[in-house]
């Protein structure tokens, strides 16, 4: 077992142990905290496909996160009010349907954004993804049907077959299982032929084209897959808070997702997990000390970028190995 594998498993074990310890100590709040970690880790794992493997600095992944959230919120609202949604189709309170719908819509939106933004690179790509996410954000604010600026409440947490999702532990385990699935996807993608082309395109797109593989299609597929995974996390996030609002779509959210990955380790399997755990911990510890905790988060982030590249995984497991 390589050192990175060991470190990755340790983080996953720690995340799994946290809610059980909380339950044993009768501190249910910490289960929610662990759930938040798992969901943000899932969202960032999605982004890590595009950013870490493909080198695509998407500053618009909040769009996919929010689309997942709104898919859950809108379907639940229609089910709750017993109103047909579209073409006579009903809403639903089944999480699985929400994940699929959220991922499908996010995938289509990612396809459209990717078709335009991936023709460019570098700073253009960053600004264009940011701009399109902002477009969706403003749309959500000004579209009055689903709460507009005020957002949308989910009155009862949605259902999963055979599980009582109202129990915090059960909901955590659903989130954790999806995180594991996404990590498995990331791991297999990374080591596959597709992943080889994607990573080669990050390291040297000229070389990739010179062997006869056009980077565009590879990146487009990665961008779509990345957005779909992040959308599933968004649906879970809506269920965790029982609330969706345009803030899930904001540029600040996009920035946070990138920050998680940088804290954990760009392109590393457990980078998003380590980063999300660290971030939520900061939020909790610093937030408990001062209401201006984001100032200190900014200082920490600045220090990490300037002086400690490689993130937590890089610190613990050294540089990545590519076989």
């Amino acid at each position, binding site marked *: 077992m390589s050192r990175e594998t060991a470190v990755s498993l340790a983080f996953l074990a720690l995340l799994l142990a946290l809610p059980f310890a909380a339950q044993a100590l009768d501190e249910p709040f910490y289960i929610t905290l662990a759930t938040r970690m798992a969901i943000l880790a899932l969202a960032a794992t999605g982004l890590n496909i595009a950013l870490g493997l493909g080198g695509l600095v998407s500053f618009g992944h909040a769009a996919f996160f929010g689309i997942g959230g709104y898919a859950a919120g809108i379907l639940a609202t229609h089910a709750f009010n017993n109103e047909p949604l579209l073409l006579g189709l009903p809403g639903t309170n089944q999480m699985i349907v929400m994940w699929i719908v959220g991922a499908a819509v996010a995938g289509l939106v990612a396809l459209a954004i990717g078709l335009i933004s991936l023709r460019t690179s570098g700073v253009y790509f960053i600004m264009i993804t940011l701009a399109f996410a902002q477009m969706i954000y403003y*749309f959500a604010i000004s579209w009055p049907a689903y709460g507009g600026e005020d957002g949308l409440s989910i009155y009862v947490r949605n259902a999963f077959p055979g599980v009582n999702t109202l129990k915090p532990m059960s909901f955590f385990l659903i989130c954790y299982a999806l995180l594991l699935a996404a990590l498995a996807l990331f791991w297999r993608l990374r080591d596959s032929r597709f992943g080889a082309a994607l990573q080669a395109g990050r390291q040297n797109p000229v070389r990739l084209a010179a062997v006869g593989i056009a980077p565009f299609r590879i990146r487009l597929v990665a961008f779509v897959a990345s957005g779909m995974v992040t959308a599933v996390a968004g649906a879970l996030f809506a269920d965790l808070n029982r609330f969706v609002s345009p803030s899930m779509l904001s540029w*600040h959210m996009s*920035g946070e997702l990138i920050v998680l990955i940088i804290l954990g380790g760009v392109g590393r399997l457990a980078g998003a997990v380590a980063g999300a755990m660290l971030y939520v911990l900061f939020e909790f510890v610093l937030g408990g000390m001062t209401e201006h905790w984001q*100032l200190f988060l900014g200082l920490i982030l600045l220090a990490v970028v300037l002086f400690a590249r490689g993130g937590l995984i890089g610190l613990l497991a050294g540089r990545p190995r590519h076989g």
Partner: protein
Amino acid sequence: MSLALFIEQLLNGLQFGVMLFLMAAGLTLIFGVMGLINLAHGSLFMVGAFACASVAAATGSFWLGLAASLAAAAAAGAVIEILVIRRLYDRDHLDQVLATFALILIFSEGTRWVFGSFPLYLDIPALLSGAVHLPGGAQYPVYRLAVIGVGILVAVGLYLLIGRTRLGMRIRAGESDREMIGALGVDIRTLYTLVFALGAALAGLAGAMVGALQSVQVGMGEPVLILAFVVIVIGGIGSIKGALVGSILVGVTDTLGRFLLPAAFGLVMEPSAAAGVGAALASMLIYVVMALILAVRPQGLFSAHA
């Protein structure tokens, strides 16, 4: 719809565009010369607005506030350039994005700490408080016309600065070849600090002028920043001319879209629904314009880095 109303909206769009230009010009200059993407440019806008509002409140003079906004934003720009930005020129864009994102957090939260969460208000100076008559009978605030005038002056000034002065020559040389400008004996570190402070001052000026039209509060810079990005993407990164054309295009399209689209939908729908649909689509309009331009010209209209 009356002609007067249309002209008023057109002028509003122009004023909005001018404000965007002040932001976009600095951003595109900084990118063109130093190759840096600066997310914290919106924070400098906010610094300008807060400096103007607080100095104007303390002294009772908008003009002192305006001077303070330029000085404060330029100083803040120079300080972050020397402490942080300078270390980022040779880094990849991801590092630049993250470090300047961190600066946003620091600036926003720091400002909240000092000034609290309540917005400040800035009055329009007495000299510019009147209105002028427009053809068609409507009135238009002098202040907004003055903002448009300042924007035109800045555009002309930048054109002369870059085209006609030694500093401008150095900026253009730095843009094409960093090694060469170093070999010419120009102190490139000082040049970069100057360019960054100049961009910051323009952002601060924009913030101060907008401060008198809306409330001055934490986070006011970011929506403007993102629109300025749209402007730069449309205009072509590194091009001042592109920033000017893009700003006016975005400012006018956005303002007229918000005004005309609900009215247009009103012709075919009931009024309340038309207002909702029109507003929602209007909020997306400039991004659609951006997408269309990119589909035809992926590097923007006047790219300096084709």
